[in-house]
């Protein structure tokens, strides 16, 4: 989904998912942490799905489309898998507060 077409909270979460998936793939390069990385990403995907189910139809809010685009670009610039692990936690927190949710 293109970020320009973000209208609702569900749109914002869907648009961010590709960047999050790529981040998780990079983080999996840290072999010793593979299980943690997959569990962590699954836990946050579950939380994002909960929000999409509960509030997905609501308007995304001012600035959210741009926030998702910039957040996705920011993590797209990460090339260190260790930093990617840290951002696997940070990314959904930033996304959730952008749409008015507590993590």
């Amino acid at each position, binding site marked *: 989904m293109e970020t320009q077409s973000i209208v609702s909270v569900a749109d914002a979460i869907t648009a961010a998912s590709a960047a999050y998936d790529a981040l998780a793939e990079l983080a999996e390069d840290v072999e010793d942490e593979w299980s943690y990385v997959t569990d962590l990403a699954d836990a946050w995907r579950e939380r994002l799905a909960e929000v999409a189910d509960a509030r997905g139809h609501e308007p995304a809010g001012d600035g959210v489309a741009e*926030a998702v685009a910039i957040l996705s670009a920011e993590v797209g610039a990460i090339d260190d898998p260790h930093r990617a692990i840290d951002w696997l936690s940070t990314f959904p927190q930033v996304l959730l507060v952008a749409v008015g949710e507590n993590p």
Partner: protein
Amino acid sequence: MRFQDAAPDARAVVYAGIQADPLVARAATLLADASLEQRILARAAMNGMSTDPVVWRSMFPRLFGPSNGAGPERDRSEAILEVALAVAERGEQVRSQVRGAIVESLTELLVRRRSGIAAPGPSGATVRRERRILFDGVRAEIHPYDVTVEAPGASEAIDCKWGARGINADVLHQLDDARTHAADEDESLAASLVVFDARRSCDVRLARQTAPHERTRIVSLETLDELAR
């Protein structure tokens, strides 16, 4: 149970220099009164790739958007962003150390807000950094605790981590061992682990740990203000 300053070894000397960095104190002071969203901003920007403030203002529309105009909260968000980017602009290794020192300093500031600590008397509690805890007949741990509350009947050992990934068997064992050794001496010692990360991430990490942690209080990004109570 006795508290003791950590040995001034090479690590301690280097780390004392980092803790004394004015940037650490400024960040901790700002974060002590910050909202959850402002703390998430700090966490993101301190470990981000971009150091352009425009990027971060756009990423946090509820902090920097038109609905949050001029005022003390907007000023605090700007100040937190400025200090977070100053941390990010340090080299990779240094900024990792500075982030850790900020979490410790923030923890100390919040703990000092507890009643009974703010105005210490003869029997009042003291808050210290980098202290070891000694027990009769027990070999002392090598690593000091990041923050300690030293008070008769209400002591606490606190370790701090930047992220959930920092939760490991060593820190969980050390905290739980201190608590149980204190109990063996009929002393009360609370054990806490402060993690500058979301509770959900901490829970994922903890689920993988076999080290005892059921009686260690986990303080996450969402509950930092509980340190002051």
